[in-house]
């Protein structure tokens, strides 16, 4: 009693808990409701069927590939946006972040009219002997398109919060821009880069609209787990529920594992 009187209270106002709990329930309850619909006796058979395994493997492979692409292109994009100033920068940032708010189907249509056979670059790609449509490459492209902004946003935030002091010191000590970037900037924002990559991976894993519009749906080639779930729902709702659970578990595992490894030193 005496202790709580002396230390200044920094607690939250009590009423905050009401909407917070309601909000949490709104997210958690549907997941629990899904659990109640899982046919546990059939579960192992449903999730290990050939089509399920093919879809899960394809999802993991393509999401990993698109995460790598997101890091390779997104990190430089974030650095340019955070560390330079030029005319039209805010417009450019809005455009880059557009896939965040765009319905994925729209992204798929846009990709189709760019990289499709009759698209903007389709003819050029055809001459080079590259056919993107209906290939696993198309899946990776669709996932990268929707996931890239997640990485750029996280990393740009980390770069801005981190500030430029250490970079300036390194530059004064004679380090070249490349050295500063690789030895000072990147190590400092590594946690931001990691969380951005995790977000991008999770987004890629859940990608549906752009994939079905741009890449098509064929077992082992373009039919990722979300597409398989949607298709199974047509004939076998039990299988769809079982696979949904697998997707939830995979996504949760990825997020918790990376969070923990970042929190623990």
């Amino acid at each position, binding site marked *: 009693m005496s202790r709580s009187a002396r230390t200044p209270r920094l607690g939250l106002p009590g009423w905050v808990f009401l909407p917070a709990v*309601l909000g949490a329930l709104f997210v958690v309850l549907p997941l629990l409701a899904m659990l109640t619909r899982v046919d546990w006796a059939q579960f192992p058979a449903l999730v290990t069927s050939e089509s399920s395994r093919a879809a899960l493997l394809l999802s993991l492979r393509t999401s990993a590939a698109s995460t790598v692409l997101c890091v390779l292109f997104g990190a430089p994009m974030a650095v340019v946006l955070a560390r330079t100033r030029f005319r039209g920068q805010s417009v450019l940032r809005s455009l880059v972040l557009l896939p965040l708010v765009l319905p994925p189907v729209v992204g798929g249509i846009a990709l189709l009219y760019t990289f499709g056979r009759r698209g903007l670059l389709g003819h050029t790609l055809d001459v080079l002997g590259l056919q993107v449509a*209906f290939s696993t490459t198309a899946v990776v492209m669709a996932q990268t398109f929707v996931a890239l902004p997640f990485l750029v946003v996280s990393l740009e935030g980390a770069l801005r919060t981190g500030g430029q002091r250490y970079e300036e010191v390194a530059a004064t000590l004679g380090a070249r821009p490349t050295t500063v970037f690789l030895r000072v900037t990147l190590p400092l924002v590594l946690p931001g880069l990691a969380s951005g990559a995790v977000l991008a991976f999770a987004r890629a894993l859940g990608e549906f609209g752009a994939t*079905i519009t741009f890449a098509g749906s064929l077992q082992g080639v373009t039919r990722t787990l979300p597409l398989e779930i949607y298709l199974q729902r047509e004939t076998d709702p039990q299988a769809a529920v079982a696979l949904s659970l697998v997707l939830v578990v995979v996504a949760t595992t990825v997020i918790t594992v990376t969070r923990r490894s970042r929190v623990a030193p």
Partner: protein
Amino acid sequence: MTRRPHPSRPALVATAVTLALGTVGCGGGSGDSTSKGSPTGSSSREASSTGGGPSGEITVFAAASLKKTFTRIGADFEKAHPGAKVTFSFAGSSDLVAQIQQGAPADVLATADTRNMGRVTAESLTTAPPVVFASNTLEIAVPAGNPAHVSSLADLVQPGVKVVLCAPAVPCGSAATKVEQAAGVDIKPVSEEQSVTDVLGKVSAGEADAGLVYVTDVEGAGDAVQGITFPQSSAAVNSYPIAALKASRNAALADAFVQAVTGAPGQQVLAAAGFAKAP
């Protein structure tokens, strides 16, 4: 020492949980009531009892492939029945059936196949046995100009011809499997799409060289797509059944709409869109 700074907090959390569960309970309850009652509310009940032909509001759940024709039939129906209002929900047949089984507000259901309608009649959710009001057959759809020079079903197995089909799990896909068997060909598609719209989209964009879609889809797609008929299409004739639902509180208007679809005015609109008569 272990006392919390805010003794009221656990109580608040408990209140929140109770409230939330209460809300959930209410949600479930109202969901139940909609499955039994009509969503269109009191207005339809009052209006339907005023006499002088059925009026009020109904909601029609119809297969996506019926969008153009049913919108037209609905507009004509509203003209013929002053005071009547028809609202449509267009989606894939299996989606519609799943929604109705979960208590979605619908007065009339029209599906693109008898199998999905069977799932509704199996639960005795219709007022009368469904009536088949139209049928549809498959056609080869190719992009304008027919770049891969497709002229028959056999051409679809040529190497280098990119063919898109519906997945066997969806109605248009099972129809495709039937015609393949009838023709003795084994098409290797580059993609098995979720719906006939997805197949048509890939063809009209020129991504695919050919696809199997319904005659009516080719009719509705305009100049971007050309249709090629083939004799084996008779192996898979798709029937479209319609039925009024027990959940409807405006049974008179629901029945009147079913009659409009199966009768002369509806049949004319359907025939103009390329639908064949009920087999």
